C-alpha cells in the first residue's frame, strides 16, 4: 500500500477500495463546479499514490455537506477522505488561509469553521 493511501485510510477510517468509480458523489456535489478534480477522481488518485492530490483545490472547496457520502452506493464517506487530505497539509503547519485576510463582518460560525478547516 502506498503511503498516501495508508495515511488517508488511517485519518479517515474509510476503505477507499470500496469505491468502484460510479461517479455518483461527483454528480451530486454542490461544489463540483469549483473543483479541479472530481470527488471520485480524488479517491482514484489516492489509491494510485498520486501525490498531486494533496496540492489540488478540491479538498479545500469541499464544504463538508455530506451529500456524496449519503448517496454513495458503497457507503464511502467522501467528506472524511477530503478532511484527511486537508490534514496531511495542515499537520505540516501549512495553513490554507491567512486569518487576517478573512472578512470581519462574517458570522462567527463562518470564521470559526474556516479556522478549524483551513488552519492547523
Amino acid at each position, binding site marked *: 500500500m502506498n503511503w498516501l493511501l495508508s495515511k488517508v485510510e488511517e485519518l479517515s477510517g474509510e476503505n477507499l477500495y470500496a469505491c468502484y468509480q460510479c461517479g455518483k458523489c461527483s454528480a451530486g456535489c454542490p461544489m463540483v463546479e469549483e473543483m479541479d478534480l472530481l470527488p471520485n477522481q480524488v479517491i482514484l488518485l489516492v489509491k494510485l499514490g498520486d501525490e498531486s492530490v494533496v496540492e489540488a483545490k478540491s479538498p479545500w472547496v469541499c464544504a463538508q455537506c455530506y451529500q456524496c457520502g449519503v448517496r454513495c452506493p458503497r457507503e464511502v464517506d467522501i467528506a472524511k477522505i477530503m*478532511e484527511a487530505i486537508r490534514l496531511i497539509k495542515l499537520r505540516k503547519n501549512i495553513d490554507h488561509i491567512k486569518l487576517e485576510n478573512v472578512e470581519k463582518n462574517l*458570522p462567527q460560525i463562518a470564521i470559526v469553521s474556516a479556522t478549524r478547516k483551513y488552519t492547523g
Partner: protein
Amino acid sequence: MEMGYYPGCTLKTNAKVFEDSLLKAFEKIGIKLKELNKWYCCGTVYSLATDNLMYRLAAIRNLIRAKEDGHEKLVAPCSICYNTLKQANLMAKSDEEAMSKINAFMDEEPDYDGSVSVIHPLEVIEAKLQEIKAAVKKPLGKKYAAYYGCLLLRPKEIAIDEHENPSIMERLIEALGGSVVNFPLKNECCGSYNVASNKEAVIDANYRIITNARRNGADAIVTSCPLCHFNLKEMQKEVKKVHPEFAGLPVYYFSELMVEAFGIEMEG
C-alpha cells in the same frame, strides 16, 4: 413545558433575530426554552478525522453542562451547532474507546455517557402543529421555498427528517397559512464556510439556489441556519454584481414566520 436551550455564538449576534423570534414563538405554543446556565462555542463544524478528538471536547463539555442543569433534551436551533452536538453525542453513545480518552482527558469534568438528547426546534414543532394552527392570527398568505441546507439532514444518522426529501418546514409553513413551492434545491449546500476563503463558490451557489426558488414561484426563502441565512441573504448583493438580471428573494428564519403569523410584535 421547559426544555434546555443551547444558543451558540451566532444566535447572540448576527442571528439575534432568530433567537428573539424563536423564544417568543415557542412561548406562544407553551414551550419555555431555558438557556443553559453556562455554555461555550460548540466548535462549529464536526471534526471528521479518526484521531482528532480534541475538536470534539467543546461539544461534549456543553452536553455535560446540559446534564448538570437537569435537561434530558437540549434544543439547538443553529444547524451547525445542532449537527456538531448531535454527532458528538452519537459518538458518546457508540464509541467507548474515544469516550474513555475524552473522559480521562477532561478529568475535571464528570464522565459523559451520551444521555442528553440533542434536538432541533423543527423536531419539537412537528409534534405541535395543531397548537400552532390554533395560535395563528394573521395567516401568512405568501408562497415560500423551504431551504434545509445540509446540516439538519446529513449525515443521515442525525437527520431531523427524510434526508433527501424533508417536509417538516413545509408542514409548518402550511400550518401558519402560507403555501409552499416545489423546491428541488432545498437540501443542497449553500457553500457554507467557503464564504471565508472562496467567496465565488458561495456566489454561484446563491445564484443557483435563489433562481431555482424563484422559477418555482417562491416569494421568499425560509431557513433555520444562520450561515445559510447569511450566504443566501447577504451574498445576494455580490450575486447582482456578477448577474445584473438577478432579482433575489427575501430570506427569513422559520421562527420569524411564526411570530408574524401569531401576530406577535417584535421590538426594534
